[in-house]
Each structure stands twice: as C-alpha cells, then as structure tokens.
C-alpha cells in the first residue's frame, strides 16, 4: 500500500525543520525527507544565529512555537545584544552557535516530535495531476503521496561549487545535489532563477596567533532567544571571537589575481547578494578603502576550525593561501577548508502566494533559499509559516498571513511575493517600516495570539502571555496614579543620581517620559516589583509613546488599504490606461489587496488610482 501523509517536507535545513515540526505539533501526519540524516540542522555557512533583524526573526519563530530559539539557547558559545544604545526598535540578539551541538540538539528535538517521521532519500520529482501536487518521487523511484508538499531545498537544486576556475557539481560539504528537481519544476511551469552565495575559509585554531588580534567577548548580561527559557550558561563560560583587518599586501594580492576568481574570470552565472560581497568585490568596488574588517569565529568546541568572516572569495586555492597568509596573526595559518562560491536554482518568488503556496502548482509550498532568500533565520521564519499554512490547507482552512505590522516574517514574505528578488534576500531592519513596533522584546505580545489560535503553543504558555499583559496594564496604571512628591528625601535621590529635580510634583508616568529617567531610577523612589520584561515593556511604551502611537496610526492607514481586496479573477487588460509596466507587473504578481499593489515596484500612484476606479466601477468597491 502506498503511504499517504498530510504534509511532506523536502529538506532538513532551517526552513524544513520548522515546517515539519510545526505541522507535526499541529497534529498532521508529517514526513521529513532529507538526503543526509546527519545534516539535519546543519550550519554550512557562518557559525551564528541571530544578528540585526535576524535575531528578532528568531524571537518571532519562537513566539509562534518554533524550535530555532530554544535550540540556539542550548548550543551557543557566546551571545550578545546588538545595538543596545541605538534604540529600542533595533536591539537584536546574536549568538555564536556550536556547529556540532546545534544540529545534534535539533535532531534530538525532532526525534521527540510526535506525528513526525524522518526519511533519508533524494527527491527528484513531484507527483502532479491537474496542476496539483499529490506527492513526491525519490531518486530510487519510490512514490510517496501527501495532501501537501513543502520544498525547502536550500542550495541543493543543481548546486555548483566554484573555487577559481574549478567548478564541482554538489551542495555544501561536497554533499550530493538534486540534479533533476528544478528541471521538473520548470516543466510544470515554474520560472527558475539562478542565485549565488559564498562562504569564507576555515582556519586551524592551533595555527592562529590570537595574541595580535582584538578580542570580542559576549555580553556580561545573560540572554535567551526563547521567551520560555531560563539562561543555561554562565557569563564566564562564553568563548571569544577576534577582530582583524586586511592590509595593503592583501589588496595587492587580490588585485593581481582578479582574473583568476570565478566571479571576475566569468566562470559564474548566478547573481550574488550585494550585502554579502566577496572580498574581491569589496576591493574593486571600494578601491579607496585601505582596510576591511574581518572576524575570526570559533565553529565548535568539538573540532578545530575557525570561520574567517568577511573573507568570502571565489579565488583559486593557491591565491587564497597567499591572501590568508598576508593577514596579521594568520601568517602561518593552515586553511582547513577553502572559501567557495555556490550557485543554485531557486524559484522566482513572484510565483508564490503570501501563504507561501505556489500559484502554479496547488498544494505545493516552498520556504527558504528556494524562495530566493539567504540566512538561517529568514529560512526558519518562512518554514514555520509554510508548515502552518500547509497544515491549514489539509483542513481546507484559511491561511495565516502575517501583516507587515505584525512581524519581520510578514515583511519578509510580503517583500518576496510582491517585489520578487534578483539576489538572495537578507532581512534588514531598514526594510521594516514599522520597526518601532516590531521589537525583539514584544515578539510574544505580537504573535502569541496567532500561535494560540493555531494550536502551536500550550495553554500554559499562553496563560503566561495573558499574565504579562495584565501586569503591563497594572504597572502602567500604577505609574499614572501615583505622584512623585518632592520631599527632601526624594530630592536627594535626584541629586545623588545627578538628575534635575522636577519643578513640581508629577505622576511617575510623566516622570518616566523624560529621556534621562529610567524605571530603575523610579524604583529608588517607590516600590515596583514586576518581572523585568514587564517593566521593560512599560518603560518603552511610556518613553516612546508619541512615536509608537504615530506608528500605530500609520498601520491603521495601511490596514484600510489592506482591506481593499482585489478579486482573484481581475483582468488587468481591462483596466483602462494603466502604464504598460504596471499592467505587466500587476498581472505577474496578482496582488491580493490595493495595499500590496501599491508596494510593487513599477506600479505608480496613478496606476493605483486607476485600479481603484476600475474596482469601484466593476466590483462596486469603495
């Protein structure tokens, strides 16, 4: 008898993990198929989780019931809060993760997940009938049926490893690639993109002279990604990274050998990301810069490799030797793995709906690098949404679509399906227009109602959220109702802290509005005893009230446009006087709402008014 699943996930990377895990905990019979069981949760590039914007995505995945944050908390070598001084909206956690521990802990977590089976096989085709996906076909010809299929193939679709003029078919670590799946997808009517990314050298620890480098430690404060975890490490147990710079000699070597690199020698065809240029790119494009910053990061406590961040290149191996040896402290370095560029197939994300279901093939979902993104966190964020929506599709329920004002994940998916991408897409805080609302500290407040609604968090977890909300309200009222009376005792507290004494008595709420006043200072005057995260919420809400309210007003404006839906059957040929570029883009993207339409590049405000007029006339829209 042929086996039948609710959800099949193809690929055990960061997208696939979250997809299969969330589908399974939602009670769906789920199968994860991967070409190598040992590589589940692998980190083929940088040994870190989080970073600016990305750290917030990890929190969001956690709030939605995902694994990434919890596993990272158990597996890191150091952790720090970035941008602490730059403002509440842009703070973000970044951890150095151990490349052995992280996948190991992840695999253990998946093994414990109910309703989830894991199988080792290479998928080379889909079972498709009437533009609907019914299952997958493995390399060995085995057919497995499923109500929905999620592809999270990473860089494995026709992967090509490039080192100088050398071009080797395969995925990271010399793994086998999928040779036919992307061709099949093309036959089924999907548009395929060719993308490129790269990874730098790994250096043997014992060959590095750390004494000449600048040491970079983790924070003195304990942190966790997960909102449910207690820190399980000691500050002193963290491991340092190191900072070094390129120099004139390095630049000379690169310039002299430019033609030998895969990119400049013309051996590569994929489009690489602008935010992740190779070192030769940096030196060509920023010729007047005398030096570039590089980091040495430990990969694991269980083997000897250090990751040379910032030095990614597609130069041949002999040139890489010269380049690395020109760096201070790496004169005698032993390169254990050369830097390489990797090209792979992805699908044009304009063919994906905001639910991450495919527009051409029904019941097919995609997440991660196959959708044109880059990064573990971006992959995980899509994975969890694809998993939730595939399992909702099994029950014929409406998908979960996060708004741009809900989450970075919402921004990410909306950008992909609305604007498309020609290079691997990396999340940046600057992409989020409502970033003041999308903070790392309020991911639970933003997303756990969804998580509860879709049964991805426990009753107990949800109750903790409700309690937190209640406490926030209580503390806010408490600060409003109590006044800071200027007794000599209180005035002394101000003096001791070198703060200006207010001219007259005022509520603690108003006092907290002052930029220089913190809630910790107020605690010296009155007793406040709430969990730190409650106090933090209140402090941010009071301090930046004006800015936050303004952001909410803008969200409201946008939401009005988001409510203006565009009928799925609209024929853009019939909308009069649209500019031809707008007509073509609208036809291609098929936006769900007027708001989404207005975000498509090449669609101008005039086109939006014409479209609105047409909808009003044809569909009686307001």
């Amino acid at each position, binding site marked *: 008898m042929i086996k039948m699943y609710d959800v099949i996930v193809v690929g055990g990377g960061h997208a696939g993990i979250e997809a299969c895990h969330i589908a399974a905990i939602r009670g769906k019979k789920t199968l994860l198929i991967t070409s190598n069981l040992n590589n589940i949760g692998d980190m083929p590039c940088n040994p870190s989780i989080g970073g600016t914007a990305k750290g917030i995505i990890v929190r969001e995945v956690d709030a939605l019931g995902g694994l990434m944050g919890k596993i990272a908390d158990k597996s890191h070598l150091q952790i720090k809060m970035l941008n602490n001084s730059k*403002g509440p909206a842009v703070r973000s956690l970044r951890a150095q993760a151990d490349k052995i521990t992280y996948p190991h802990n992840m695999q253990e977590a998946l093994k414990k997940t109910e309703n989830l089976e894991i199988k080792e096989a290479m998928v080379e085709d889909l079972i498709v009938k009437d533009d609907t996906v019914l299952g997958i076909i493995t390399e060995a010809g085995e057919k497995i049926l499923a109500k929905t299929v999620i592809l999270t193939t990473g860089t494995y679709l026709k992967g090509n490893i490039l080192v100088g003029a050398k071009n080797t078919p395969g995925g990271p670590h010399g793994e086998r690639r999928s040779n036919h799946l992307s061709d099949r997808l093309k036959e089924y009517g999907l548009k395929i993109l060719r993308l490129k990314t790269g990874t730098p050298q790994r250096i043997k620890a014992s060959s590095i002279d750390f004494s000449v480098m600048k040491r970079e430690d983790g924070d003195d404060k304990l942190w966790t990604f997960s909102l449910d975890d207690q820190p399980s490490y000691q500050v002193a147990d963290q491991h340092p990274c190191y900072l070094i710079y390129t120099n004139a000699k390095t630049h000379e070597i690169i310039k002299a050998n430019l033609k030998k690199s895969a990119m400049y020698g013309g051996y590569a065809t994929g489009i690489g990301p602008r*935010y992740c240029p190779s070192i030769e790119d940096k030196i060509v494009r920023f010729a007047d810069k005398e030096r570039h910053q590089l980091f040495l990061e430990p990969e694991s406590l269980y083997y000897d490799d250090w990751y040379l961040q910032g030095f990614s290149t597609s130069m041949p191996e002999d040139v890489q030797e010269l380049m690395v040896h020109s760096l201070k402290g790496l004169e005698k370095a032993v390169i254990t793995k050369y830097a390489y560029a990797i090209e792979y197939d992805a699908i044009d994300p304009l063919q994906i709906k905001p639910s991450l279901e495919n527009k051409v093939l029904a019941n097919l979902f995609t997440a991660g690098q196959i959708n044109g993104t880059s990064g573990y966190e971006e992959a995980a964020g899509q994975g969890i949404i694809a998993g939730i929506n595939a399992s909702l599709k099994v029950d014929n329920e409406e998908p979960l679509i996060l708004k741009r004002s809900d989450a970075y994940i919402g921004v990410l998916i909306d950008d992909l399906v609305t604007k498309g991408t020609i290079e691997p897409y990396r999340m940046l805080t*600057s992409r989020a227009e409502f970033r003041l609302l999308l903070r790392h500290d309020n991911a639970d407040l933003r997303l756990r109602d969804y998580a509860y609604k879709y049964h991805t968090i426990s009753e107990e977890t949800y109750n903790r959220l409700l309690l937190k909300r209640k406490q926030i309200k209580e503390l806010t009222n408490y600060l409003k109702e109590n006044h800071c009376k200027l007794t000599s005792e209180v005035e002394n507290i101000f003096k001791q802290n070198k703060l200006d004494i207010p001219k007259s008595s005022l509520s603690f709420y108003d006092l907290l509005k002052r930029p220089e006043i913190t809630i910790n200072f107020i605690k010296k005057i009155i007793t406040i005893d709430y969990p730190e995260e409650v106090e933090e919420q209140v402090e941010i809400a009071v301090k930046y009230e004006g800015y936050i309210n303004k952001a909410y007003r803008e969200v409201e404006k946008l939401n009005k446009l988001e409510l203006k839906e565009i009928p799925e059957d609209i024929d853009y040929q019939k909308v009069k006087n649209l500019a031809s570029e707008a007509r073509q883009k609208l036809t291609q993207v098929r936006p769900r709402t007027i708001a989404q339409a207005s975000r498509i590049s090449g669609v101008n405000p005039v086109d939006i008014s*014409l479209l609105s007029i047409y909808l009003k006339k044809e569909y009686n829209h307001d």
Partner: protein
Amino acid sequence: MEDTIVAISTALGVGAISIVRVSGKEAISVVKKVFTNANFGEAPSHTIHYGYIKDQNENIDEVLVMLMRAPKTYTTEDTVEINCHGGINTTNKIVEVLLKNGCRLAEPGEFTKRAFLNGRINLVEAESVNDLITAKTDAARNMALNNVGGMLSSKIKNLRAKMVQVLANIEVNIDYPEYEDELEVTHNILNKNLAEISTELQKLIADSKNGRLIKEGINVAIVGKPNVGKSSILNTLLDEEKAIVTNIPGTTRDIVEGSISLNGILLNFIDTAGIRETDDEVEKIGVIKSKKIASTADLILFVVSNNEKISNDELELLKEFPREKLLILINKSDLKTKIDVDKLKGYEYFPGNIFDTNGLDKLKEAIINKFNLGKIITKDVSYISNLRQIELVNKAYKSLENASLAEEKKLPIDIIEIDLRDAWEYLGELIGDAYNEELVDNIFANFCLGK
C-alpha cells in the same frame, strides 16, 4: 470616466474667438450630431473641419472644429475643440446644445484631472498646468512652465539625495553594528547634518514665499483716515478711474481692487474704507473689514496728508500694524506742509502727490526694495508655489525640527531617525516618489559590508 465632458476653454469675455472643448468616449459622435460638416465623423485624427454648429435646424455659429482621436490628446480620450466666434452668448449657446446632446459640463480642472488619472501627466505637472492656466504675469507663467519641466523636482531630488545618505549611514550602523570601520553617525554628526538640511529646506520655504509672490502677487492694502487721498493715489497708480473719489469723508465703503505689474510681480491694490472710529453702522462694517484686510495684506500703504497735522487716531492705528509691513506715504506734498514728521520717527515714509510721477516712482522703488523684488529671479524659476507643495515642504521642515528636538534630548538614534525619514518621505510625496527601494539600494551602493 464614462462621461463626455464639455467646457469653454478660453477666458470668458469679449475676444475674437472662443474655444469649446469636448472630451470623452462620445466626444466625436456628440459633435457630429450638431455639426453640419458631413465628413467630420469619419475624418482622420488631428484634422480641422469647417461648418456650422446647429441647434436642430437653426445655425448658431460658423466654426472650425478640430478632431483629435485618443490616445494622442491632452486627456488621452477622444477630444474635439470647437473654435467659434467670441462673445458670451454664442459660446454659451454652443455649450448648451452640446449638453442637450449628451455631454456633461466639466468641473473646474476636470480636463487636467483626466490627463492625470489617465497617466498622461504626473501630479506636480498637473498642478503646474493649473498654475499655467491661471498665471497672471509672465513670471508666474515662467514658473509654471519650469515646474512642468521638472526643475523643482530636481531641486528636491538633490535635497533628498543628501538626506538618504544620512539615513543610509544610520541604517548601516544599525544593521551592521559590528563594522567599526564605517562612520558612526554620532549625535554630533547628526546634529550637523540636520542643521544643514534644515537650512536648505528653509531656503526652499523662503523661496516658496517668492513663489507665492510670483504666482499671486503682493497684496497692498491702502490704509488711512478719510479724505487723505487714498483713492486718488490708487487711481493714479492704476491709471484708471475705478474707485469713487469725492471730498465727503467716508464715501469709499467698498473694497476696490486693481493690479499692476512691477518687475514682473503683480501688485494687487486694495483700497480700504477710511479707517476711523465711527457710529455709522454701514461704515463700521467697512472699518472692521478694512482692518482685517490690512492685517492679512503683504504690505500696508499708510496714507497721511501733508496738509494736516497727524492725529492721535492715526498714530494709534499705525501701532496696530507690524512695522515691517508698513510704508507711509505723505500725500499732497504739493500743498502746504502742516504735518509734524518727527512723530513718524522710526517709520519708513516719503512724500508724494498724484501730480508728481517722481514721488510715485519712489513709492514703487520702496516696494521693490521691501520685497527684494530685484532679487527674485522671475525667469527660469522653480519656486514651490501651490498650497499642497508648500504644506508638504512645511511638514518636512517640521519633521526636521522634531528630529533636532529629539536630538537635543539625546533620544536614541533610531528614534531621531523616524522624523528624518518622515521629512524625506514628505519630500518624496511632493515629487510623486512613493516608498521604494531607494534607501536599501543606497545602503548597498555606498557602504562596504558583507560576510
């Protein structure tokens, strides 16, 4: 936009010809029904046809009709323009006939609105077209033409480019905090940049005042107690008998307007009723109105008589107006001097009379100096001139002020940036650039980052 609209496109009044314009799906078929030329309906686009416009069987006027088929027309719709003989009756009659046969009367600006909605022109251009239509002087016309050409846009684009650089730098600091090599936008740097951008924006706003002067002219209120010769001065300036001039105090009750062009700028003179305390009800209203007009005018020409002692009423009234808006004309300089000019110390004043063109030239010169009209460039200008544009520039300026305020309070950089970004977006709105990838593109184009 199903309706076919009609309107008289030339200024109403007595002229040699008038043009009636019809635009919309039915434009050609409606005109065909009322036009005697049988070839008209099938004729090729952009051709001219001779014949009569008729109302049933009665010929109304002998006309030339221009036929322009979509899309190469102003509105991009089928358009017909009827050149008829001037005169309000004939022209109105033609419009009436067209209305009877299926057209709707166009709302003000509707042809331009259609051109905009049909994607033929952008918003700034649409606004400029409107300015062009209503331009009263050559300078105003030049300004409108330049905006159509996009000179204003390029000015604002430059300013935005400057802003986006600061924004991108801040964003880089935020998104790539580990890059110590990139310039950190500290409070000092931000302060300096905010000040620079503010200054440029202030210049735009100052220019926008010039823009308004060019477009609308300078409103000059002529104020003074009764019988000092305000109306005769006005008439002399206007070279025509418009205001009622008598010797009975208080007869000029209505506001009389007339305009002259000075250095290409329109001077709109407003005669006010003689301002004095009065019990006469009609005159009282006039007095209140006059004070109000004087307070909203750009310039107050305060007229006193050389032949009389200056009264306390006049001195009291003078105090009601801001000094920088005042010019005092000591009229009737041809009569015997009884005025005590010492009492006008601190005010700008000069003698004159209606028989002395020299004195009036001095008045004009004083106005030119006061408004720096010599400095306003009335050719190749691209001042911001309409209300929507001025409002957006003001909003942008306000946002910058907020950013500076937040900067003073030493709020975190990502909070200060909110206002700076707002300012940048307001200016984007002004030139019709919606949110786009500009910022992200700038980050990658100008900063060296990567793994």
